[in-house]
């Protein structure tokens, strides 16, 4: 009684409710983005639209969501509409009271970005002294408030050989999930690519290690959101579709309401204020292209294509101008 289907609306939305940030991260994808934010009433109405379309969950990001003065009200509104609410934060502004307030506003999950187990390395990378310590403290406050926590780590030159240390650190912090995000080459990530990105060989080494850790570590969910791991014969347990989830399960909304396939693809396909979500989801030519990728170059004839679908479309687009190009991280 199970069947295949094309979803009529995304399951989840990554929503950058603001674009202000108190940090200056070297890999940030959103620094070049608009600073225009939706007025409160408009934003609340947009959440209603999203809930009505059947979306299950929204994950707030940005920018730093805790800098948005209306965050709690927005979250309360969203969870009141039946949406599951989570967010990603750098943790700097999290104290005990805030963690409790987030819980009361309906947050069930909060991810904190930590890029290294070594605090000097993280602080230098994030551009703010003391940020590691406050991120760690944030995890404690959240756990105390009963919110499920995770650590998000962007893999790049500063941490790619430290898998075991990062895993041990996550265990020490008592988080249930450790997200290794692959480096995306958009925004500042692209400007700092040469300094931060790994070579395809190094990605291979990293994913070998990360997959081994995922196998080994019980009780810690290590998530790898990169379709390229198909090359190592692995499928992420969380990957519900072939290739990547973008345009198939999830959608990104920017601070001004613009919709893009994912946070790393700067192609606007509509605006949530003006457009009908289900219609954009169904009719967008860009989403259509992402859902029906065509192998080009070395992907034609690659035995993994069916699972990998050419890897991350954002990286391909950023570096080659065509999302059908083979993922620049691919070592095949």
């Amino acid at each position: 009684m199970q069947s295949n289907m094309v979803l009529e609306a995304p399951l989840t939305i990554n929503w950058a409710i603001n674009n202000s940030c108190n940090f200056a991260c070297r890999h940030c994808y959103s620094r070049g983005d608009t600073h225009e934010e939706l007025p409160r009433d408009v934003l609340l109405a947009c959440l209603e639209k999203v809930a009505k379309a059947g979306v299950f969950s929204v994950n707030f990001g940005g920018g730093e969501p805790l800098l948005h003065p209306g965050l709690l009200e927005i979250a309360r509104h969203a969870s009141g509409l039946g949406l599951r609410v989570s967010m990603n934060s750098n943790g700097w502004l999290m104290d005990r009271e805030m963690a409790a307030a987030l819980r009361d506003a309906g947050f069930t999950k909060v991810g904190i970005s930590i890029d290294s187990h070594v605090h000097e390395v993280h602080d230098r990378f994030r551009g703010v002294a003391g940020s590691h310590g406050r991120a760690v403290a944030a995890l404690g406050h959240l756990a105390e408030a009963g919110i499920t926590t995770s650590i998000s780590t962007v893999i790049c030159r500063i941490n790619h050989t430290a898998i075991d240390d990062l895993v041990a650190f996550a265990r020490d912090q008592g988080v249930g999930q450790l997200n290794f995000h692959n480096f995306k080459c958009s925004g500042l990530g692209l400007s700092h690519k040469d300094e931060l990105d790994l070579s395809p060989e190094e990605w291979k080494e990293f994913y070998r290690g990360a997959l081994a850790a995922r196998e080994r570590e019980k009780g810690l969910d290590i998530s790898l959101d990169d379709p390229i791991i198909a090359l190592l014969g692995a499928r992420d347990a969380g990957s519900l579709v072939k290739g990547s989830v973008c345009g198939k399960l999830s959608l990104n909304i920017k601070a001004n309401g613009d919709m893009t396939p994912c946070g790393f693809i700067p192609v606007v396909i509509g605006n949530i204020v003006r457009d009908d979500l289900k219609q954009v989801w169904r009719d967008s030519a860009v989403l259509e292209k992402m859902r029906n990728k065509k192998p080009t170059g070395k992907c034609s004839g690659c035995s993994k294509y069916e699972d990998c679908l050419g890897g991350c479309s954002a990286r391909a687009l950023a570096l080659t101008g065509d999302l059908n190009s083979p993922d620049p991280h691919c070592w095949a």
Partner: protein
Amino acid sequence: MQTIHRNPNVMWREETDALAQVQEALDRGDEVEETGTSVLFSGGTMISLNYLGTEIWKLCDGRTMDGIVAELLPQFEVDEAVLREDVQAFLDELAAKGFISYAE
């Protein structure tokens, strides 16, 4: 009496357009087994159910097996024993995935 309960952590929805299509197809007397009309999501697992699966899922609200079968029987032209067997197999599968639970 064993009762059947949806796991409250499962997020789910019916897809209205697909449902409308299925209803039209049913009116014409066409097959609808392959068309998904709902999507269920939990703990990183997503499944989509066809019309009958969705109807069963919606009845997992604390009813018994007999209750579910009694509700479905008038809607679907099948033999009761066959329906019961299908429903049981389907529920066992949902239970194995943690989407429903049985309670005494």
